[in-house]
């Protein structure tokens, strides 16, 4: 299925969970936060939250800024 990941279309397995997406993107151990369709997904919900087709997923990190 197709999702929009950080603004770009991306093919992932149907029904992938957020925790599986994190693993698939090899982001384990990094500091980030995720929202799906403009709703924050707390880390504690990664394992239960299933993605759906056309979900808009944002993965954000800290960067230098004023």
């Amino acid at each position: 299925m197709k999702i929009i990941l950080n603004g770009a279309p991306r093919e992932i397995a149907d029904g992938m969970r957020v925790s599986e997406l994190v693993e698939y993107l090899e982001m384990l151990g990094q500091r980030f936060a995720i929202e799906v369709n403009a709703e924050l997904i707390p880390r504690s919900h990664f394992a239960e939250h299933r993605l759906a087709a056309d979900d808009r997923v944002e993965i954000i990190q800290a960067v230098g800024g004023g």
Partner: protein
Amino acid sequence: MSTSNTDRLIIAGKDYGSRLLVGTGKYKDMDETARAIAASSAEIVTIAVRRTNIGQNRDEPNILDVLPPDRYTILPNTAGCYDVDTAVRTCRLARELLDGHNLVKLEVLGDEKTLFPDVIATLKAAEILVKDDFEVMVYTNDDPIVARELEAIGCVAVMPLAAPIGSGLGIRNPLNIRTIVENAKVPIIVDAGVGTASDAAVAMELGCDGVLMNTAIAAAKNPVLMASAMRKAIEAGREAFLAGRMPAKRFASASSPIEGLFF
């Protein structure tokens, strides 16, 4: 005599020895960022929240590796947000990113050319965030009425601009800044617009509780040296404020005694 041990800046119940808050943008690299921030002695540092580069630069150091949250108070900002919704979303993402740390710098911008705050949207966003248990330090215009309103909403610090963000123009409206300070019960921190050390000292002499700056340090020819200059300016300005300046007079007043002249 130094006042740094007794004269502390208290924000949201936590106290700080430094009254200089610094941003972490616009530096050449992470190493320069770290050295400039060390030279500034700042304890509160701002960061921005942006999309990760998925699959790219995986080994690139993150700003939080250079400025670990156990050593610095990390202040995530909502820079780049032009509406209430994106500012609130950004704060929620930042709180999750920082394991529940709820101190944020709210800025809702109104215009790309000036980066002046949209005060109406800022007031709305502040209200939502305070209700959602955030501790909000808020960027605003140098308007005493808006500053009073933001304090009434429950913001933990009000941060009027000295001049447009990144302009280095110095304090354009010192009388308004003074009025904001006199009205306030929460810390007033000048945020944005200082260009050099004397600007920072003036802000502190006006009675501000601190100054937040980024470009004035990062865009100096020698950022590390400017960071050190800013640290001293903030301390000097604060001590001058506490000492209470002499009244200004139009004409001279001799410093040496008139009595005992032998000619």
